[in-house]
Protein backbone atom coordinates (compact mmCIF):
# COMPACT_ATOMS: atom_id res chain seq x y z
CA UNK A 1 0.00 0.00 0.00
CA UNK A 2 2.83 2.38 0.85
CA UNK A 3 4.36 1.67 -2.53
CA UNK A 4 1.16 2.53 -4.33
CA UNK A 5 0.83 5.74 -2.35
CA UNK A 6 4.33 6.83 -3.25
CA UNK A 7 3.82 5.97 -6.86
CA UNK A 8 0.64 8.01 -6.98
CA UNK A 9 2.32 11.11 -5.52
CA UNK A 10 5.22 10.79 -7.94
CA UNK A 11 2.85 10.46 -10.87
CA UNK A 12 0.60 13.28 -9.70
CA UNK A 13 3.43 15.70 -8.94
CA UNK A 14 4.71 15.45 -12.50
CA UNK A 15 1.36 15.35 -14.19
CA UNK A 16 2.08 18.25 -16.56
CA UNK A 17 5.16 16.45 -17.83
CA UNK A 18 3.26 13.22 -18.52
CA UNK A 19 0.53 15.08 -20.37
CA UNK A 20 3.16 16.94 -22.39
CA UNK A 21 4.85 13.68 -23.35
CA UNK A 22 1.58 12.09 -24.43
CA UNK A 23 0.37 15.07 -26.47
CA UNK A 24 2.26 14.62 -29.79
CA UNK A 25 1.14 10.99 -30.08
CA UNK A 26 -2.36 11.92 -28.96
CA UNK A 27 -2.65 14.62 -31.62
CA UNK A 28 -1.30 12.29 -34.29
CA UNK A 29 -3.83 9.63 -33.33
CA UNK A 30 -6.74 12.09 -33.19
CA UNK A 31 -5.93 13.85 -36.48
CA UNK A 32 -4.87 10.79 -38.47
CA UNK A 33 -6.88 7.99 -36.90
CA UNK A 34 -10.06 9.38 -35.36
CA UNK A 35 -10.62 12.27 -37.80
CA UNK A 36 -10.31 10.10 -40.94
CA UNK A 37 -13.23 7.97 -39.78
CA UNK A 38 -15.25 11.15 -39.13
CA UNK A 39 -14.52 12.24 -42.71
CA UNK A 40 -15.63 8.78 -43.81
CA UNK A 41 -18.95 9.35 -42.04
CA UNK A 42 -19.33 12.77 -43.68
CA UNK A 43 -18.65 11.28 -47.12
CA UNK A 44 -20.99 8.37 -46.48
CA UNK A 45 -23.77 10.72 -45.40
CA UNK A 46 -22.99 13.24 -48.11
CA UNK A 47 -23.96 13.41 -51.74
CA UNK A 48 -22.47 13.54 -55.21
CA UNK A 49 -22.01 16.53 -57.44
CA UNK A 50 -24.13 15.40 -60.40
CA UNK A 51 -22.08 17.33 -62.92
CA UNK A 52 -18.50 16.50 -61.91
CA UNK A 53 -19.31 13.19 -60.17
CA UNK A 54 -17.22 14.41 -57.24
CA UNK A 55 -17.90 13.78 -53.55
CA UNK A 56 -19.76 16.40 -51.57
CA UNK A 57 -19.13 15.62 -47.90
CA UNK A 58 -21.79 16.77 -45.43
CA UNK A 59 -20.28 17.66 -42.05
CA UNK A 60 -23.47 18.17 -40.06
CA UNK A 61 -24.95 14.79 -39.00
CA UNK A 62 -28.45 16.36 -39.02
CA UNK A 63 -28.21 16.88 -42.78
CA UNK A 64 -26.94 13.43 -43.70
CA UNK A 65 -28.77 11.67 -46.46
CA UNK A 66 -29.36 7.94 -46.58
CA UNK A 67 -28.91 7.86 -50.34
CA UNK A 68 -25.52 6.08 -50.33
CA UNK A 69 -26.66 3.72 -47.60
CA UNK A 70 -29.74 2.62 -49.50
CA UNK A 71 -27.74 2.23 -52.72
CA UNK A 72 -25.25 -0.05 -50.94
CA UNK A 73 -28.06 -1.89 -49.17
CA UNK A 74 -29.61 -2.58 -52.55
CA UNK A 75 -26.26 -3.83 -53.90
CA UNK A 76 -25.93 -6.25 -50.99
CA UNK A 77 -29.48 -7.56 -50.54
CA UNK A 78 -31.50 -6.34 -53.50
CA UNK A 79 -32.17 -8.08 -56.80
CA UNK A 80 -29.09 -8.41 -58.96
CA UNK A 81 -26.95 -7.57 -55.94
CA UNK A 82 -23.26 -7.94 -56.67
CA UNK A 83 -21.77 -7.14 -53.26
CA UNK A 84 -23.75 -9.76 -51.36
CA UNK A 85 -22.01 -12.76 -52.96
CA UNK A 86 -18.65 -11.07 -52.44
CA UNK A 87 -19.40 -10.55 -48.75
CA UNK A 88 -20.47 -14.17 -48.39
CA UNK A 89 -17.35 -15.36 -50.20
CA UNK A 90 -15.21 -13.21 -47.90
CA UNK A 91 -16.74 -14.91 -44.86
CA UNK A 92 -16.26 -18.41 -46.32
CA UNK A 93 -12.65 -17.78 -47.40
CA UNK A 94 -11.77 -16.19 -44.07
CA UNK A 95 -13.38 -18.99 -42.05
CA UNK A 96 -11.67 -21.78 -44.01
CA UNK A 97 -8.30 -20.02 -44.10
CA UNK A 98 -8.46 -19.27 -40.35
CA UNK A 99 -9.29 -22.87 -39.45
CA UNK A 100 -6.49 -24.22 -41.67
CA UNK A 101 -4.04 -21.68 -40.22
CA UNK A 102 -4.90 -22.65 -36.65
CA UNK A 103 -4.74 -26.36 -37.48
CA UNK A 104 -1.23 -25.99 -38.90
CA UNK A 105 0.00 -23.39 -36.44
CA UNK A 106 -1.12 -25.06 -33.23
CA UNK A 107 0.99 -28.26 -33.46
CA UNK A 108 4.00 -26.26 -34.65
CA UNK A 109 3.75 -23.71 -31.85
CA UNK A 110 3.00 -26.46 -29.33
CA UNK A 111 6.03 -28.47 -30.38
CA UNK A 112 8.40 -25.49 -30.29
CA UNK A 113 7.17 -24.20 -26.95
CA UNK A 114 7.21 -27.59 -25.19
CA UNK A 115 9.61 -29.97 -26.86
CA UNK A 116 12.19 -27.96 -28.77
CA UNK A 117 14.50 -27.91 -25.74
CA UNK A 118 17.94 -26.58 -26.51
CA UNK A 119 17.10 -26.13 -30.20
CA UNK A 120 14.40 -23.57 -29.34
CA UNK A 121 16.45 -20.64 -30.67
CA UNK A 122 16.96 -22.36 -34.01
CA UNK A 123 13.27 -23.18 -34.34
CA UNK A 124 12.25 -19.66 -33.33
CA UNK A 125 14.57 -18.13 -35.92
CA UNK A 126 13.05 -20.37 -38.59
CA UNK A 127 9.51 -19.54 -37.48
CA UNK A 128 10.18 -15.80 -37.27
CA UNK A 129 11.96 -15.66 -40.66
CA UNK A 130 8.77 -15.55 -42.80
CA UNK A 131 7.49 -12.76 -40.54
CA UNK A 132 10.29 -10.58 -41.92
CA UNK A 133 9.65 -11.49 -45.54
CA UNK A 134 7.28 -9.03 -47.13
CA UNK A 135 3.80 -10.20 -48.04
CA UNK A 136 4.42 -9.22 -51.64
CA UNK A 137 7.49 -11.42 -51.82
CA UNK A 138 5.62 -14.39 -50.35
CA UNK A 139 2.84 -14.02 -52.94
CA UNK A 140 5.32 -13.47 -55.77
CA UNK A 141 7.07 -16.71 -54.80
CA UNK A 142 3.81 -18.63 -55.23
CA UNK A 143 2.96 -16.87 -58.48
CA UNK A 144 6.32 -18.07 -59.83
CA UNK A 145 5.69 -21.62 -58.64
CA UNK A 146 2.06 -21.93 -59.70
CA UNK A 147 2.17 -20.36 -63.15
CA UNK A 148 1.64 -22.59 -66.16
CA UNK A 149 4.98 -24.17 -66.92
CA UNK A 150 6.00 -23.34 -63.33
CA UNK A 151 7.78 -25.65 -60.95
CA UNK A 152 4.62 -26.83 -59.17
CA UNK A 153 3.06 -28.12 -62.38
CA UNK A 154 6.36 -29.73 -63.37
CA UNK A 155 6.48 -31.47 -60.00
CA UNK A 156 2.92 -32.71 -60.53
CA UNK A 157 3.71 -34.19 -63.92
CA UNK A 158 6.81 -35.85 -62.46
CA UNK A 159 4.59 -37.92 -60.16
CA UNK A 160 2.18 -38.65 -63.00
CA UNK A 161 -0.56 -36.11 -62.25
CA UNK A 162 -1.85 -33.70 -64.89
CA UNK A 163 0.68 -30.87 -64.93
CA UNK A 164 -1.16 -28.28 -66.95
CA UNK A 165 -3.59 -26.87 -64.40
CA UNK A 166 -4.02 -23.10 -64.51
CA UNK A 167 -3.72 -22.54 -60.76
CA UNK A 168 -3.71 -18.75 -61.13
CA UNK A 169 -6.80 -18.60 -63.33
CA UNK A 170 -9.39 -17.96 -60.63
CA UNK A 171 -9.28 -20.95 -58.30
CA UNK A 172 -10.69 -20.49 -54.81
CA UNK A 173 -8.31 -23.11 -53.44
CA UNK A 174 -5.31 -21.05 -54.59
CA UNK A 175 -6.66 -17.91 -52.96
CA UNK A 176 -7.41 -19.69 -49.67
CA UNK A 177 -3.96 -21.28 -49.57
CA UNK A 178 -2.49 -17.87 -50.40
CA UNK A 179 -4.32 -16.37 -47.43
CA UNK A 180 -3.08 -19.18 -45.18
CA UNK A 181 0.48 -18.77 -46.42
CA UNK A 182 0.32 -15.01 -46.01
CA UNK A 183 -1.01 -14.83 -42.47
CA UNK A 184 0.20 -18.01 -40.79
CA UNK A 185 3.52 -16.61 -39.45
CA UNK A 186 1.52 -14.22 -37.28
CA UNK A 187 -0.69 -17.00 -35.91
CA UNK A 188 2.30 -19.15 -35.04
CA UNK A 189 4.04 -16.34 -33.19
CA UNK A 190 0.91 -15.44 -31.24
CA UNK A 191 0.19 -19.08 -30.36
CA UNK A 192 3.81 -19.61 -29.36
CA UNK A 193 3.79 -16.53 -27.11
CA UNK A 194 0.72 -17.85 -25.28
CA UNK A 195 1.63 -21.55 -25.18
CA UNK A 196 5.11 -20.79 -23.91
CA UNK A 197 3.58 -19.22 -20.80
CA UNK A 198 1.47 -22.26 -19.91
CA UNK A 199 2.71 -23.58 -16.60
CA UNK A 200 4.27 -27.00 -17.20
CA UNK A 201 3.47 -28.06 -13.64
CA UNK A 202 -0.25 -27.94 -14.48
CA UNK A 203 0.27 -30.58 -17.14
CA UNK A 204 2.49 -32.65 -14.84
CA UNK A 205 -0.15 -32.43 -12.13
CA UNK A 206 -2.79 -33.71 -14.53
CA UNK A 207 -0.61 -36.66 -15.47
CA UNK A 208 0.22 -37.36 -11.82
CA UNK A 209 -3.46 -37.37 -10.98
CA UNK A 210 -3.98 -40.13 -13.52
CA UNK A 211 -5.15 -38.45 -16.71
CA UNK A 212 -3.91 -40.03 -19.92
CA UNK A 213 -1.83 -38.03 -22.36
CA UNK A 214 -4.79 -37.28 -24.60
CA UNK A 215 -7.13 -36.47 -21.78
CA UNK A 216 -4.52 -34.15 -20.27
CA UNK A 217 -4.31 -32.44 -23.62
CA UNK A 218 -8.10 -32.24 -24.00
CA UNK A 219 -9.02 -31.24 -20.44
CA UNK A 220 -6.01 -29.14 -19.44
CA UNK A 221 -3.94 -27.94 -22.40
CA UNK A 222 -6.80 -26.99 -24.69
CA UNK A 223 -8.71 -24.95 -22.05
CA UNK A 224 -5.41 -23.28 -21.09
CA UNK A 225 -4.71 -22.40 -24.71
CA UNK A 226 -8.17 -20.95 -25.33
CA UNK A 227 -6.92 -17.34 -25.09
CA UNK A 228 -4.18 -18.26 -27.56
CA UNK A 229 -6.68 -19.68 -30.03
CA UNK A 230 -8.92 -16.63 -29.67
CA UNK A 231 -6.00 -14.25 -30.22
CA UNK A 232 -4.81 -16.33 -33.17
CA UNK A 233 -8.26 -16.20 -34.74
CA UNK A 234 -8.37 -12.41 -34.41
CA UNK A 235 -4.86 -11.89 -35.70
CA UNK A 236 -5.72 -13.74 -38.92
CA UNK A 237 -9.41 -13.09 -39.42
CA UNK A 238 -9.34 -9.29 -39.00
CA UNK A 239 -6.78 -8.58 -41.74
CA UNK A 240 -8.20 -11.33 -43.99
CA UNK A 241 -11.61 -9.67 -43.92
CA UNK A 242 -10.03 -6.49 -45.29
CA UNK A 243 -7.80 -8.29 -47.78
CA UNK A 244 -8.15 -7.36 -51.43
CA UNK A 245 -4.70 -8.05 -52.82
CA UNK A 246 -4.17 -11.79 -52.20
CA UNK A 247 -7.00 -12.75 -54.56
CA UNK A 248 -5.90 -10.13 -57.11
CA UNK A 249 -2.37 -11.49 -57.12
CA UNK A 250 -3.23 -15.19 -57.14
CA UNK A 251 -6.33 -15.14 -59.32
CA UNK A 252 -7.53 -11.76 -60.53
CA UNK A 253 -10.78 -13.35 -61.66
CA UNK A 254 -14.19 -11.89 -60.70
CA UNK A 255 -15.14 -15.28 -59.24
CA UNK A 256 -12.74 -14.91 -56.33
CA UNK A 257 -13.26 -11.27 -55.34
CA UNK A 258 -13.79 -10.32 -51.72
CA UNK A 259 -15.42 -7.42 -49.90
CA UNK A 260 -12.14 -5.46 -49.97
CA UNK A 261 -12.24 -5.52 -53.78
CA UNK A 262 -15.75 -4.05 -53.72
CA UNK A 263 -14.55 -1.20 -51.49
CA UNK A 264 -11.50 -0.58 -53.66
CA UNK A 265 -13.55 -0.68 -56.86
CA UNK A 266 -16.03 1.89 -55.58
CA UNK A 267 -13.30 4.24 -54.39
CA UNK A 268 -11.75 4.14 -57.85
CA UNK A 269 -14.98 4.92 -59.71
CA UNK A 270 -16.08 8.55 -59.80
CA UNK A 271 -19.52 9.01 -58.28
CA UNK A 272 -19.27 5.87 -56.14
CA UNK A 273 -16.83 7.10 -53.48
CA UNK A 274 -19.69 7.74 -51.07
CA UNK A 275 -20.89 4.17 -51.47
CA UNK A 276 -17.33 2.95 -50.87
CA UNK A 277 -17.36 4.91 -47.62
CA UNK A 278 -20.68 3.33 -46.61
CA UNK A 279 -19.38 -0.14 -47.37
CA UNK A 280 -16.20 0.51 -45.34
CA UNK A 281 -18.28 1.74 -42.41
CA UNK A 282 -20.51 -1.33 -42.62
CA UNK A 283 -17.45 -3.59 -42.46
CA UNK A 284 -16.15 -1.53 -39.55
CA UNK A 285 -19.43 -1.86 -37.66
CA UNK A 286 -19.50 -5.62 -38.19
CA UNK A 287 -15.92 -5.90 -36.93
CA UNK A 288 -16.40 -3.44 -34.08
CA UNK A 289 -17.59 -6.02 -31.55
CA UNK A 290 -14.74 -8.50 -32.09
CA UNK A 291 -12.24 -5.63 -32.17
CA UNK A 292 -13.49 -4.11 -28.92
CA UNK A 293 -13.46 -7.55 -27.31
CA UNK A 294 -9.87 -8.03 -28.45
CA UNK A 295 -8.79 -4.57 -27.29
CA UNK A 296 -10.37 -5.02 -23.87
CA UNK A 297 -8.83 -8.45 -23.37
CA UNK A 298 -5.39 -7.13 -24.40
CA UNK A 299 -5.76 -4.13 -22.11
CA UNK A 300 -6.80 -6.42 -19.26
CA UNK A 301 -3.84 -8.65 -19.96
CA UNK A 302 -1.41 -5.76 -19.74
CA UNK A 303 -3.06 -4.55 -16.53
CA UNK A 304 -2.68 -8.00 -14.99
CA UNK A 305 0.98 -8.01 -15.90
CA UNK A 306 1.36 -4.69 -14.17
Amino acid sequence: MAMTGQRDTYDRRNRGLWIGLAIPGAIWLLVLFVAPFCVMLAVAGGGVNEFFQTVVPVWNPLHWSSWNLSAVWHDIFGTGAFIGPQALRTLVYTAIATVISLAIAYPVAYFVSRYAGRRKTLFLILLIAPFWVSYMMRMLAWIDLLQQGGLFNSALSLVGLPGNTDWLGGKSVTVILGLVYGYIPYVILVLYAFLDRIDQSMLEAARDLGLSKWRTFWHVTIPLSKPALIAGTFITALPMLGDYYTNQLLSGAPGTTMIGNAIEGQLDSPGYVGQGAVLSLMLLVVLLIPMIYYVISTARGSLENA
Partner: protein
Amino acid sequence: MASVAGESVATSPPEPAELTLRRGARGNPWRRPWVMEGFTWLYIVWSIVPIAIAVLFSFNKGASQATWQGFSTKWYIGKGVTSVLHNPSLHQAVIQTVVLAVLTTVICVPIGVCFAIGIDRWRSRTSNGLNFVMIFSFVVPELLLAVALFLLVTQGLTFIRLGTPAEVAGLVVWNISWPAIIVRARLVSIGRTYEEAAADLGASRLGAIWRVLLPMLMPAVFASAVLVFASTVDDFVIVEQLSSTANTQPMSVLIYSNVHGGLSGPALNALATIMLFLSLVAALIGFLGYRWMTRGERTKGSVEALTPIAGI
Protein backbone atom coordinates in the same frame (compact mmCIF):
# COMPACT_ATOMS: atom_id res chain seq x y z
CA MET B 1 8.16 -50.09 -16.45
CA ALA B 2 8.19 -47.59 -13.65
CA SER B 3 5.73 -45.43 -15.51
CA VAL B 4 3.30 -48.33 -15.92
CA ALA B 5 3.33 -49.01 -12.19
CA GLY B 6 3.01 -45.35 -11.37
CA GLU B 7 0.05 -44.86 -13.63
CA SER B 8 -1.93 -47.88 -12.56
CA VAL B 9 -1.66 -46.78 -8.94
CA ALA B 10 -2.90 -43.32 -9.76
CA THR B 11 -5.76 -44.32 -12.07
CA SER B 12 -9.18 -44.62 -10.56
CA PRO B 13 -10.17 -48.26 -9.81
CA PRO B 14 -13.10 -48.82 -12.26
CA GLU B 15 -10.85 -48.32 -15.29
CA PRO B 16 -10.29 -51.59 -17.19
CA ALA B 17 -6.81 -52.96 -16.62
CA GLU B 18 -6.25 -53.56 -20.28
CA LEU B 19 -6.68 -49.87 -21.11
CA THR B 20 -4.29 -48.79 -18.37
CA LEU B 21 -1.69 -51.22 -19.62
CA ARG B 22 -1.96 -50.12 -23.20
CA ARG B 23 -1.74 -46.50 -22.22
CA GLY B 24 1.20 -47.20 -19.97
CA ALA B 25 3.05 -48.96 -22.72
CA ARG B 26 3.09 -45.92 -24.97
CA GLY B 27 2.68 -43.22 -22.38
CA ASN B 28 6.35 -42.50 -21.87
CA PRO B 29 6.31 -38.76 -21.24
CA TRP B 30 9.97 -38.39 -22.21
CA ARG B 31 9.54 -39.92 -25.64
CA ARG B 32 10.41 -37.53 -28.45
CA PRO B 33 7.27 -36.43 -30.29
CA TRP B 34 8.46 -37.52 -33.72
CA VAL B 35 5.20 -36.84 -35.52
CA MET B 36 4.96 -33.29 -34.25
CA GLU B 37 8.61 -32.63 -34.94
CA GLY B 38 8.25 -33.92 -38.49
CA PHE B 39 5.19 -31.77 -38.98
CA THR B 40 7.06 -28.71 -37.71
CA TRP B 41 9.91 -29.34 -40.16
CA LEU B 42 7.41 -29.80 -42.99
CA TYR B 43 5.87 -26.46 -42.12
CA ILE B 44 9.28 -24.80 -42.04
CA VAL B 45 10.20 -26.22 -45.44
CA TRP B 46 6.86 -25.11 -46.87
CA SER B 47 7.26 -21.62 -45.43
CA ILE B 48 10.82 -21.03 -46.59
CA VAL B 49 11.46 -23.01 -49.80
CA PRO B 50 9.13 -21.03 -52.14
CA ILE B 51 10.79 -17.80 -51.04
CA ALA B 52 14.26 -19.28 -51.49
CA ILE B 53 13.30 -20.34 -55.01
CA ALA B 54 12.02 -16.85 -55.82
CA VAL B 55 15.29 -15.35 -54.57
CA LEU B 56 17.28 -17.91 -56.56
CA PHE B 57 15.49 -17.11 -59.80
CA SER B 58 16.19 -13.40 -59.41
CA PHE B 59 19.79 -14.45 -60.18
CA ASN B 60 18.78 -16.49 -63.23
CA LYS B 61 20.57 -15.76 -66.48
CA GLY B 62 17.41 -16.23 -68.53
CA ALA B 63 13.94 -14.78 -68.04
CA SER B 64 12.43 -18.10 -66.93
CA GLN B 65 11.21 -18.74 -63.42
CA ALA B 66 11.20 -22.51 -63.82
CA THR B 67 14.43 -23.42 -65.62
CA TRP B 68 17.79 -22.52 -64.21
CA GLN B 69 20.03 -21.06 -66.90
CA GLY B 70 23.08 -20.04 -64.96
CA PHE B 71 23.97 -17.37 -62.39
CA SER B 72 23.80 -13.72 -63.32
CA THR B 73 23.20 -10.38 -61.64
CA LYS B 74 21.82 -8.83 -64.79
CA TRP B 75 18.31 -8.33 -63.37
CA TYR B 76 19.90 -6.18 -60.67
CA ILE B 77 22.55 -4.18 -62.50
CA GLY B 78 22.54 -5.34 -66.12
CA LYS B 79 22.40 -2.88 -69.00
CA GLY B 80 20.07 -3.43 -71.93
CA VAL B 81 17.54 -5.48 -69.91
CA THR B 82 14.89 -4.40 -67.44
CA SER B 83 17.14 -4.31 -64.38
CA VAL B 84 16.57 -2.62 -61.05
CA LEU B 85 19.50 -0.27 -61.54
CA HIS B 86 18.74 0.84 -65.07
CA ASN B 87 14.95 0.87 -65.21
CA PRO B 88 13.87 4.27 -63.90
CA SER B 89 10.62 3.10 -62.31
CA LEU B 90 12.21 0.14 -60.50
CA HIS B 91 15.08 2.34 -59.41
CA GLN B 92 12.72 5.02 -58.13
CA ALA B 93 10.68 2.41 -56.23
CA VAL B 94 13.74 1.30 -54.23
CA ILE B 95 14.52 4.91 -53.32
CA GLN B 96 10.90 5.62 -52.37
CA THR B 97 10.78 2.57 -50.09
CA VAL B 98 13.95 3.60 -48.28
CA VAL B 99 12.79 7.23 -47.97
CA LEU B 100 9.43 6.18 -46.52
CA ALA B 101 11.00 3.68 -44.12
CA VAL B 102 13.54 6.16 -42.79
CA LEU B 103 11.10 9.08 -42.47
CA THR B 104 8.46 6.92 -40.79
CA THR B 105 10.90 5.40 -38.31
CA VAL B 106 12.40 8.78 -37.42
CA ILE B 107 8.98 10.36 -36.79
CA CYS B 108 7.10 7.39 -35.39
CA VAL B 109 9.51 6.06 -32.76
CA PRO B 110 10.09 9.26 -30.71
CA ILE B 111 6.37 10.11 -30.76
CA GLY B 112 5.43 6.57 -29.77
CA VAL B 113 8.00 6.33 -26.98
CA CYS B 114 6.92 9.66 -25.44
CA PHE B 115 3.29 8.61 -25.81
CA ALA B 116 4.00 5.34 -23.99
CA ILE B 117 5.72 7.10 -21.06
CA GLY B 118 3.05 9.79 -20.86
CA ILE B 119 0.11 7.40 -21.00
CA ASP B 120 1.66 5.06 -18.46
CA ARG B 121 2.01 7.76 -15.81
CA TRP B 122 -0.80 10.18 -16.60
CA ARG B 123 -3.52 8.06 -15.09
CA SER B 124 -6.87 9.54 -16.01
CA ARG B 125 -9.93 8.87 -18.06
CA THR B 126 -8.39 10.76 -20.97
CA SER B 127 -5.21 8.67 -20.94
CA ASN B 128 -7.22 5.45 -20.77
CA GLY B 129 -9.25 6.64 -23.73
CA LEU B 130 -6.12 7.51 -25.70
CA ASN B 131 -4.63 4.12 -24.87
CA PHE B 132 -7.81 2.50 -26.15
CA VAL B 133 -7.57 4.48 -29.41
CA MET B 134 -3.92 3.43 -29.77
CA ILE B 135 -4.63 -0.29 -29.34
CA PHE B 136 -7.63 0.12 -31.65
CA SER B 137 -5.34 1.47 -34.36
CA PHE B 138 -3.40 -1.78 -33.96
CA VAL B 139 -6.34 -4.09 -34.67
CA VAL B 140 -8.34 -2.16 -37.25
CA PRO B 141 -8.03 -3.76 -40.72
CA GLU B 142 -5.44 -1.83 -42.68
CA LEU B 143 -7.75 -1.35 -45.67
CA LEU B 144 -10.30 0.53 -43.56
CA LEU B 145 -7.67 2.86 -42.13
CA ALA B 146 -6.20 3.38 -45.61
CA VAL B 147 -9.61 4.25 -47.10
CA ALA B 148 -10.35 6.62 -44.21
CA LEU B 149 -6.96 8.31 -44.63
CA PHE B 150 -7.52 8.61 -48.37
CA LEU B 151 -10.85 10.34 -47.74
CA LEU B 152 -9.23 12.57 -45.10
CA VAL B 153 -6.51 13.86 -47.40
CA THR B 154 -8.79 14.22 -50.44
CA GLN B 155 -11.91 15.65 -48.76
CA GLY B 156 -10.82 17.08 -45.41
CA LEU B 157 -7.23 18.08 -44.72
CA THR B 158 -6.29 18.64 -48.33
CA PHE B 159 -3.04 20.38 -47.37
CA ILE B 160 -1.61 16.90 -46.72
CA ARG B 161 -0.91 16.02 -50.33
CA LEU B 162 -1.28 12.51 -51.71
CA GLY B 163 2.16 11.06 -52.24
CA THR B 164 5.06 11.07 -49.80
CA PRO B 165 3.48 13.42 -47.15
CA ALA B 166 0.25 11.41 -46.95
CA GLU B 167 2.13 8.11 -47.08
CA VAL B 168 4.38 9.07 -44.17
CA ALA B 169 1.49 10.47 -42.13
CA GLY B 170 -0.47 7.25 -42.64
CA LEU B 171 2.47 4.93 -42.00
CA VAL B 172 3.29 6.73 -38.75
CA VAL B 173 -0.22 6.31 -37.38
CA TRP B 174 -0.40 2.69 -38.55
CA ASN B 175 2.92 1.85 -36.85
CA ILE B 176 2.72 4.01 -33.73
CA SER B 177 1.41 1.10 -31.67
CA TRP B 178 4.72 -0.82 -32.02
CA PRO B 179 6.81 1.59 -29.91
CA ALA B 180 3.84 2.45 -27.71
CA ILE B 181 3.04 -1.17 -26.79
CA ILE B 182 6.62 -2.50 -26.57
CA VAL B 183 7.99 0.46 -24.60
CA ARG B 184 5.03 0.42 -22.26
CA ALA B 185 5.55 -3.26 -21.52
CA ARG B 186 9.13 -2.53 -20.55
CA LEU B 187 8.10 0.52 -18.48
CA VAL B 188 5.82 -1.73 -16.48
CA SER B 189 8.61 -4.20 -15.79
CA ILE B 190 11.09 -1.45 -14.81
CA GLY B 191 8.76 0.25 -12.34
CA ARG B 192 9.38 3.66 -10.85
CA THR B 193 12.03 2.89 -8.24
CA TYR B 194 15.02 4.02 -10.31
CA GLU B 195 13.43 7.29 -11.33
CA GLU B 196 12.41 8.05 -7.78
CA ALA B 197 15.90 7.27 -6.54
CA ALA B 198 17.29 9.66 -9.15
CA ALA B 199 14.81 12.32 -8.06
CA ASP B 200 15.77 11.79 -4.40
CA LEU B 201 19.42 12.21 -5.32
CA GLY B 202 18.62 15.58 -6.86
CA ALA B 203 17.92 14.89 -10.52
CA SER B 204 15.37 17.12 -12.18
CA ARG B 205 12.19 15.56 -13.59
CA LEU B 206 13.45 15.65 -17.15
CA GLY B 207 16.94 14.69 -16.02
CA ALA B 208 15.61 11.55 -14.35
CA ILE B 209 13.81 10.57 -17.54
CA TRP B 210 16.68 11.41 -19.86
CA ARG B 211 19.53 9.98 -17.79
CA VAL B 212 17.90 7.09 -15.96
CA LEU B 213 14.67 5.99 -17.59
CA LEU B 214 15.59 6.38 -21.25
CA PRO B 215 18.80 4.31 -21.08
CA MET B 216 16.81 1.53 -19.42
CA LEU B 217 14.15 1.78 -22.14
CA MET B 218 16.74 1.71 -24.94
CA PRO B 219 16.39 -2.01 -25.80
CA ALA B 220 12.64 -1.61 -26.23
CA VAL B 221 13.04 1.61 -28.21
CA PHE B 222 15.57 -0.11 -30.44
CA ALA B 223 13.45 -3.22 -30.99
CA SER B 224 10.43 -1.10 -31.89
CA ALA B 225 12.48 1.05 -34.31
CA VAL B 226 13.55 -2.10 -36.14
CA LEU B 227 9.96 -3.32 -36.29
CA VAL B 228 8.67 0.01 -37.59
CA PHE B 229 11.39 0.13 -40.24
CA ALA B 230 10.75 -3.39 -41.49
CA SER B 231 6.99 -3.10 -41.43
CA THR B 232 7.21 0.14 -43.44
CA VAL B 233 9.43 -1.54 -46.02
CA ASP B 234 6.86 -4.31 -46.34
CA ASP B 235 3.76 -2.13 -46.17
CA PHE B 236 1.44 -2.24 -49.11
CA VAL B 237 -2.15 -1.24 -48.39
CA ILE B 238 -1.61 2.24 -46.94
CA VAL B 239 1.02 3.25 -49.47
CA GLU B 240 -1.07 1.93 -52.34
CA GLN B 241 -4.07 4.05 -51.34
CA LEU B 242 -2.04 7.15 -50.54
CA SER B 243 0.53 7.20 -53.33
CA SER B 244 -0.18 9.62 -56.16
CA THR B 245 2.10 9.40 -59.16
CA ALA B 246 4.42 6.58 -60.25
CA ASN B 247 7.23 8.47 -58.51
CA THR B 248 5.72 7.89 -55.09
CA GLN B 249 5.12 4.16 -55.54
CA PRO B 250 7.42 2.06 -53.35
CA MET B 251 8.57 -1.44 -54.24
CA SER B 252 5.54 -3.29 -52.86
CA VAL B 253 3.09 -1.26 -54.98
CA LEU B 254 5.24 -1.63 -58.08
CA ILE B 255 5.39 -5.41 -57.68
CA TYR B 256 1.63 -5.57 -57.15
CA SER B 257 0.80 -3.53 -60.23
CA ASN B 258 3.26 -5.36 -62.49
CA VAL B 259 2.73 -9.00 -61.56
CA HIS B 260 0.12 -9.52 -64.25
CA GLY B 261 1.66 -7.98 -67.30
CA GLY B 262 3.89 -4.95 -67.39
CA LEU B 263 7.34 -5.52 -66.03
CA SER B 264 6.89 -9.13 -64.97
CA GLY B 265 9.81 -11.51 -64.83
CA PRO B 266 13.04 -11.76 -62.88
CA ALA B 267 13.35 -7.99 -62.37
CA LEU B 268 10.35 -8.16 -60.04
CA ASN B 269 12.00 -11.04 -58.18
CA ALA B 270 15.09 -8.88 -57.90
CA LEU B 271 13.01 -6.05 -56.48
CA ALA B 272 11.35 -8.39 -53.97
CA THR B 273 14.76 -9.77 -53.02
CA ILE B 274 15.97 -6.25 -52.27
CA MET B 275 12.93 -5.74 -50.02
CA LEU B 276 13.71 -9.04 -48.31
CA PHE B 277 17.32 -8.03 -47.87
CA LEU B 278 16.35 -4.67 -46.29
CA SER B 279 14.01 -6.37 -43.81
CA LEU B 280 16.42 -9.16 -42.94
CA VAL B 281 19.28 -6.73 -42.35
CA ALA B 282 16.98 -4.73 -40.06
CA ALA B 283 16.03 -7.95 -38.27
CA LEU B 284 19.64 -9.02 -37.85
CA ILE B 285 20.67 -5.59 -36.55
CA GLY B 286 17.68 -5.71 -34.24
CA PHE B 287 18.49 -9.15 -32.89
CA LEU B 288 22.20 -8.48 -32.32
CA GLY B 289 21.59 -4.98 -30.97
CA TYR B 290 18.91 -6.14 -28.56
CA ARG B 291 21.12 -8.97 -27.36
CA TRP B 292 23.99 -6.59 -26.77
CA MET B 293 21.86 -4.02 -24.96
CA THR B 294 20.29 -6.54 -22.63
CA ARG B 295 23.47 -8.50 -21.90
CA GLY B 296 23.57 -9.42 -18.23
CA GLU B 297 19.78 -9.17 -17.96
CA ARG B 298 18.92 -12.44 -19.62
CA THR B 299 18.58 -15.76 -17.93
CA LYS B 300 17.39 -18.05 -20.70
CA GLY B 301 19.82 -17.29 -23.51
CA SER B 302 19.07 -15.73 -26.85
CA VAL B 303 15.41 -16.80 -26.98
CA GLU B 304 14.54 -13.74 -24.97
CA ALA B 305 16.26 -11.49 -27.50
CA LEU B 306 14.23 -13.02 -30.31
CA THR B 307 10.79 -12.38 -28.96
CA PRO B 308 10.84 -8.54 -28.84
CA ILE B 309 12.02 -8.17 -32.43
CA ALA B 310 9.13 -10.32 -33.56
CA GLY B 311 6.73 -8.10 -31.64
CA ILE B 312 5.62 -10.82 -29.22
